[in-house]
């Protein structure tokens, strides 16, 4: 007697797609496939945000309000900028999804902060590397999904500003 279908299908979460997108984020130098953002899903980003909050909590910083506020305003800003800069529009959910996926390296940074303090030269260098990694992945996905050419660094800069704010939260 059947009651469920496959559990992932019932929940509407496609684990294979989530894994593909995660792999794209983890390897910022490999060119991305433009079609992976065709279905916007927020399951992965929500998972990463919760993970970030959890690792920050483990490191002793309880700043959820700032995280939510900053991510909402930052997403809104990048949504406006992408709509103005690209020839085709983009939806808010797509922006939030991509930015959430590219938060993964930041989760790695904040889990490192649990074990050793990041204030100091090594911590700063590590934070900078992670910021560059996050913003390069995010801009790579955006330009392949929205078909914008010659603008990767221009998109990477505001993403770097946003992730820099997250890194500030993590380090200090």
């Amino acid at each position: 007697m059947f009651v469920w279908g496959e559990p992932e299908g019932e929940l509407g979460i496609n684990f294979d797609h989530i894994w593909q997108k995660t792999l794209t984020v983890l390897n910022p130098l490999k060119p991305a496939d433009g079609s992976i953002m065709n279905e916007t899903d927020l399951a992965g980003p929500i998972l990463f945000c919760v993970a970030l909050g959890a690792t920050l909590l483990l490191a002793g910083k309880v700043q959820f309000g700032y995280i939510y506020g900053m991510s909402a305003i930052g997403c809104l800003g990048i949504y406006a900028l992408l709509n103005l800069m690209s020839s085709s529009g983009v939806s808010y959910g797509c922006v939030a999804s991509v930015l959430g996926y590219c938060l993964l390296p930041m989760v790695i940074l904040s889990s490192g902060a649990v074990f050793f303090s990041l204030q100091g030269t090594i911590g700063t260098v590590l934070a900078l590397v992670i910021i560059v990694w996050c913003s390069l992945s995010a801009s790579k996905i955006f330009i392949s999904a929205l078909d914008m050419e010659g603008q990767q660094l221009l998109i990477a800069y505001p993403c770097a500003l946003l992730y820099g704010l997250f890194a500030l939260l993590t380090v200090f």
Partner: protein
Amino acid sequence: MLGIPDTSSATYKPTGSKHRTRAAPDPPPLFDDTSGGYSIQPGGYPAPGADVAFNVNHLLGDPVANVAMAYGSSIASHGKDIVHKELHRFVSVNKLKYFFAVDTAYVAKKLGLLVFPYTHQNWEVQYSRDVPLPPRQDLNAPDLYIPTMAFITYVLLAGMALGIQKRFSPEVLGLCASTALVWVVLEVLALLLGVYLATVRSDLSTFHLLAYSGYKYVGMILSVLTGLLFGSDGYYVALAWTSSALMYFIVRSLRTAALGPDSMGAPAPRQRLQLYLTLGAAAFQPLIIYWLTFHLVR
């Protein structure tokens, strides 16, 4: 078949997935195959988060919650439509898009031009059939990407500078940001008034003036950075250099832009007024740069 509640078929309808409506003539299946995913309309205003929520919801099989969610998402999209309509009344998005049609090469060259404008020869904005070329194709065209990014970077840098000097608090940051914004608005209004009084006709719209008055934030960022790295002396040197470069840049750009494509038609007193306007705008820049940055480099 026994054991399947009727409400299961009722809960599928409001989710509105495209491929389910095709199955209507068949007898209702035991369970819907949702593993194939679902398609989202590209570029529209969907509520993708709500789609995930819907699929979680039919596990609970509660039609009331489903109706509530459908109502909520329809309100959300209605709200989005209202916001967009109001926005379109004030800001013509197409004209704004012209200023953001930039690419990396343009931004790099323009930043170089803002710091060292003395060797640039041709300051004319190029037109193609009476329509100005977008910034991608014309280095002299103004853009709004650099001023916006520079403004945001300036606010963040001010926060960092205050943090380094242990004078940081979110209120001070907000004060910094709003002061800078107010000065930009005042300057754009003053320039608009001047352009209105002094020019027969020109292509200088509000966005053009916003762009030109936003370029000073690049100079401000450089001054603050040098001040933080090299102390007070470095700050004053950078201030002097960026101010003179910016003044030269503004005078050369506005002189050709204010006159428009047909420059010989303006009578002599008007031309002198235009010159005074440009010189006044240029002289104002170092003052405002100093005013907005010196308290950061104490």
